[in-house]
């Protein structure tokens, strides 16, 4: 059977090409795939499109990739005031940014995962984010049309995986990770612990193995 387990973070991202789009899990410092991010930083992959709620904090999280000028385009909800490397690139006009509501980001990812090309939402109606978007009234409510958003890769941080790729997360480190795991062509997971098949209760698995392509065990955040 196909082995999904890789020996190192450098190996697991070795084929991520320049120009790739990547979904990055994580929110508010929890659940970021920091080891995978640092591997991409070492590898020096360029012209990346990043989909992530935040844009790093100093060199942490996505910060190092902005510092290294590896990211060209960003879809985010809250880049963040401490994302100084992102803000520098943005101010210099080096980065294309699509800003969207956090729940809209979630739903666009889920729409991609679930094979739904587009949806109408009341969120954003009458605001800047509605500019250029189709608007209509459905059931008496003004709505705008949003489209699915996926990527070539997802970088996911999980707590435990079994050897076939079933995942569980820890507390609020779950956040975007299960959504992104399901919305990419190739899903790459860094995980604290890999257990035997059957060691995870089928009732508590959050990301079933069907969504996971590759895993690597890491130590430390």
């Amino acid at each position, binding site marked *: 059977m196909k082995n999904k387990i890789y020996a190192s973070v450098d190996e697991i991202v070795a084929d991520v090409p320049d120009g790739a789009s990547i979904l990055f899990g994580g929110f508010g410092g929890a659940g970021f795939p920091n080891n995978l991010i640092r591997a991409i930083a070492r590898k020096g992959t360029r012209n990346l499109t990043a989909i992530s709620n935040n844009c790093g904090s100093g060199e942490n999280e996505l910060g190092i990739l902005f510092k290294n000028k590896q990211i060209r385009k960003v879809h985010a909800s809250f880049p963040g005031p401490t994302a100084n490397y992102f803000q520098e690139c943005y101010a210099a006009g080096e980065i294309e940014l699509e800003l969207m509501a956090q729940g809209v980001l979630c739903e666009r990812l889920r729409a991609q995962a679930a094979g739904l090309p587009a949806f109408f939402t009341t*969120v954003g109606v009458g605001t800047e984010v509605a500019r250029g978007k189709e608007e209509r009234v459905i059931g008496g409510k003004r709505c705008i049309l949003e489209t699915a958003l996926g990527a070539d890769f997802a970088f996911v941080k999980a707590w435990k995986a079994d050897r076939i790729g079933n995942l569980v997360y820890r507390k609020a480190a779950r956040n975007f990770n299960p959504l992104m795991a399901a919305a990419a062509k190739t899903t790459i997971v860094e995980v604290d612990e890999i257990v035997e098949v059957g060691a995870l209760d089928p009732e508590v698995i959050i990301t079933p193995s069907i969504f996971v392509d590759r895993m690597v065990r890491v130590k430390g955040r």
Partner: protein
Amino acid sequence: MPKERLTREQIAERAAQELPDGAYVNLGFGIPNLMSNYVLADKTIYFHSENGILGMGPRAKAGEEDYDLVDAMKMPVTVIPGAAFFNQAEAHTMTRGGHLDVAVLGAFQVSEKGDIANWKVPGAKGSGGIGGAMDIAVGALRLIVCMEHNAKDGAPKVVKECSYPLTAIECVKTVITDLAVLDVTPQGLVLREVAPGFTPAEVQECTGAKLLVRGSVPEMKLGGPLG
């Protein structure tokens, strides 16, 4: 003795009175985030965080922080018995889908129609950021705004039309400031309460939209834990 406007803590205290027992509630950045300190002991409130927590408890004590258990402001928190974790899409199913009994947000401006502007200052540097505010504002069953009544330069923050970039339209139900409690109604802004010592006319003078006064307007009652 000169009349004093409410402190931020007192605005939070007054706002906490609006939370019914057993309510599911999201508190935004700023003054709303202070409210949990003022929930009376006989009430249970289930605090929601858009990163996937229902049943948030107080901030974690020093030395007991778990950085996998943070709130939407990145602060280590705790959970109460009966809490649940879920993914961010489910967290926003709760916000957008009309499941939160109350949400409380800070704002730069609120219009008399209930429009709210709270995510971007015109002309500010940087990218800005939306976060969960648009989803929460649109979806909460009852949206309360807590803010100072006037900006630092004295400009009214309760206005006829927002001049700041909007977060959402026609969604604010109640505004609680350092001067007043206002309800957004189909007829316009109703002045429900004034800060102790202030008159409706004085509040009107500090407000950028017409306030409706129905009979005598009581003063806010304060005097909670920090009162």
